[in-house]
């Protein structure tokens, strides 16, 4: 590992009052993680800023460091107006200590920086004099953005185009400028050698003739170069236009999908509303019948009583009918004083006995019969009770289950309604867009771009031809040296130099291509492991300007802005990891809030990728970033842990080693 932080020492830095130290132990293969745990506001970002500040190029302006005071407010209150941050680290086996000290003076309420000093010690030797330059060689300021960063801002690297500064920083990490510089310096040397040769040959006629010819070609060359530059600018502008139009066209095409989606979501919302209405009714019914469920044992008992009474009532009624018949027969017999069967007269004595018997038979409306409900009333009551009891038996639904189902449907409806609102918003944005006009413009611009491209190629060919002629003329001129006494050595030197120049050109081109291929391979390996869309995404393409495109299995390129915030973070992290893996001089990764918008699957994928990096990784994490069960899963990769403890009454944070 090239750079490894061994210790960070802070003095009166932001929330860190007095002296605070973090000591990092040695790393091993697969054990490269350090975790600094801390809740929000406990000082994690202050720690990140301290590392950024101590490694910064002091001459470069920075909104944060040149803005509000970096001094601990408690220290300022007690008159201690000196702060410092010191980092001890190893770089390519050398022991380095860098210390940045800031002294301020208080004028009224305002704190003014008096001076800022940088001290650098390398292997015990004081290198303070050239500290800025040496530090820039160890870890260039522009490259620090890929080493010390906030996880929530990481997605900045997943954008459609990088700024010139970012592109240069990436090339710097890959070691491209150093190789490219050689080509530029050889061009300068080429100019010097040509001048020397021309001085020797100045008075020769052949030389003058060749020189005149060369000058004509030089004019041609500069014309071609100027026109190529113009065409290149046109091409770039058209490229941007076409990309934007394609995006608009895709957006409008997507609108048709959105309309379909909206219709299906509206249908779903209506179905959900209907289901919810039914569930509410059911819940209402269950509520009103809750009392019946409670009364069920009493109702059931009452039913059985009625049933019992009913069976008794049947025999009473039967007896009543019999009695009525007997009374009617006896009454008729007594009235007629004659036997109803044989019609013989009945004696007085017999009549008296019959009268006595008649009175012993109970008449309807008194006695036993009076005590039972009328059968129709009882039966109706039994039917009602039976229906209620059966209804209660049939009600198998659990009121709690109905309630949970209702909550689930309500939540789903809310989600669907939110989706509908979003879709309507998106559709409203393009309400006035004319899809056919966008496609017409796109098509026209693509044709224009192709035309400009052809012109560009034609000019490039012209330039190549001119360059070949110039090269040949140069060779011819150099050959003249051989015929000039005393200058054969210079001719040999220039001839060899030309071959060397061609060689270096090729080395530079091949090196740049291979470096790009290396970073692309590394970033793809990380991306494939971390993404949760392994079935959908094929790979990530690294474009000429180092911007990224996700390529789907169907072969379509997805521009970064069409990815979700979490996916952008995954893409950006894969890129940074790829850079780190491809770099010959990897810097430690210090990540604040490392998992920003990532879901659990992405977070776990990223956590699994960190130990594969060839550098030290320091995570400044909240309990939400790394829950305990996740921490345990990666315990074997953790070298050490710290905990930040914020003492709120004193506005002060202390650090404990866990």
């Amino acid at each position, binding site marked *: 590992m090239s750079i490894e932080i061994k210790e960070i020492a802070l003095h009166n830095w932001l929330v860190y009052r007095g002296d605070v130290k973090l000591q990092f132990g040695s790393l091993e293969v697969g054990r490269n993680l350090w975790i600094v745990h801390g809740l929000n506001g406990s000082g994690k970002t202050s720690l990140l800023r301290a590392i950024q500040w101590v490694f910064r190029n002091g001459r470069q302006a920075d909104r944060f460091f040149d803005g509000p005071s970096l001094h601990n407010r408690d220290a300022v209150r007690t008159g201690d107006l000196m702060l410092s941050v010191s980092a001890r680290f190893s770089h390519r086996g050398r022991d380095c200590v860098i210390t940045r000290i800031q002294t301020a003076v208080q004028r009224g309420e305002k704190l003014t920086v008096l001076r800022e000093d940088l001290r650098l010690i390398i292997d015990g030797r004081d290198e303070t004099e050239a500290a800025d330059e040496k530090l*820039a060689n160890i870890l260039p300021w522009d490259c620090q953005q890929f080493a010390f960063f906030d996880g929530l801002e990481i997605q900045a690297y997943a954008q459609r185009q990088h700024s010139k500064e970012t592109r240069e920083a990436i090339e710097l990490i890959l070691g491209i400028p*150093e*190789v490219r*510089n050689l080509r530029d310096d050889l061009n300068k*040397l080429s100019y*010097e050698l040509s001048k020397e040769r021309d001085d020797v040959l100045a008075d020769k006629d052949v030389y003058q003739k060749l020189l005149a010819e060369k000058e004509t070609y030089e004019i041609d060359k500069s014309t071609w170069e100027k026109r190529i530059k113009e065409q290149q600018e046109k091409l770039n502008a058209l490229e941007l236009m076409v990309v934007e139009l394609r995006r608009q066209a895709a957006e409008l095409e997507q609108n048709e999908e959105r309309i379909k989606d909206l219709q299906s979501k509206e249908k779903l919302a209506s179905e959900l509303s209907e289901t919810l209405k039914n569930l509410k009714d059911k819940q209402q019914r269950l509520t009103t019948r809750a009392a019946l469920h409670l009364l069920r044992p009493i109702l059931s008992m009452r039913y059985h009583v009625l049933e019992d009474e009913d069976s008794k009532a049947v025999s009473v009624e039967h007896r009543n009918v019999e009695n009525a018949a007997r009374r009617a027969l006896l009454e008729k017999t007594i009235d007629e004083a004659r036997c109803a069967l044989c019609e013989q007269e009945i004696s007085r004595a017999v009549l008296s006995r019959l009268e006595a018997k008649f009175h012993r038979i109970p008449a309807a409306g008194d006695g036993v019969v009076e005590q039972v409900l009328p059968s129709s009333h009882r039966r109706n009551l039994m039917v009602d009770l039976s229906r209620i009891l059966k209804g209660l038996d049939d009600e198998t639904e659990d009121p709690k289950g109905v309630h949970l189902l209702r909550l689930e449907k309500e939540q789903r409806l809310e989600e669907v309604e939110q989706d509908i609102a979003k879709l309507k918003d998106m559709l409203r944005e393009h309400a006035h867009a004319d899809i056919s006009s966008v496609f017409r413009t796109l098509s026209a611009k693509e044709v224009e771009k192709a035309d400009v491209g052809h012109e560009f190629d034609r000019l490039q060919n012209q330039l190549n031809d001119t360059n070949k002629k110039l090269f040949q003329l140069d060779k011819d001129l150099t050959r003249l040296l051989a015929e000039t006494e005393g200058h054969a050595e210079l001719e040999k030197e220039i001839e*060899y130099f030309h071959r060397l120049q061609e060689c270096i050109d090729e080395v530079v081109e091949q090196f740049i291509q291979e*470096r790009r291929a290396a970073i692309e391979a590394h970033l793809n390996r990380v991306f494939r492991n971390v993404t949760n869309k392994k079935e959908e995404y094929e790979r990530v393409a690294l474009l000429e300007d180092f911007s990224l495109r996700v390529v789907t299995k169907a072969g379509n390129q997805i521009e970064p802005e069409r990815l979700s915030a979490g996916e952008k973070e995954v893409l950006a992290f894969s890129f940074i990891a790829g850079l780190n893996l491809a770099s010959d001089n990897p810097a430690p990764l210090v990540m604040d809030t490392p998992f920003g918008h990532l879901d659990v699957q992405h977070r776990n994928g990223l956590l699994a990728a960190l130990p594969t990096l060839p550098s030290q990784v320091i995570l400044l994490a909240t309990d939400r970033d790394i829950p305990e069960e996740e921490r345990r899963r990666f315990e074997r990769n953790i070298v050490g842990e710290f905990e930040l403890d914020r003492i709120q009454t004193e506005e002060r944070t202390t650090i404990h080693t866990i």
Partner: protein
Amino acid sequence: MPDEKMLDRIVNEVSKKHDVSSDLVRKMTALEQGKLHLERRRGITRDLRALLQEELDSKKAKAE
């Protein structure tokens, strides 16, 4: 910092193709190392030429 192994391999391949000394190319790339694009060292072309002449002298000495 360029990837040393990668650069070394490319230098070997390409210098052979152009019939130039891979050692010279290596010395020249080493001369550029550690110098940033914004902070170039003065006299670099002079140093490069010295390397070139050194190489030609050594070739001449070998030929003699």
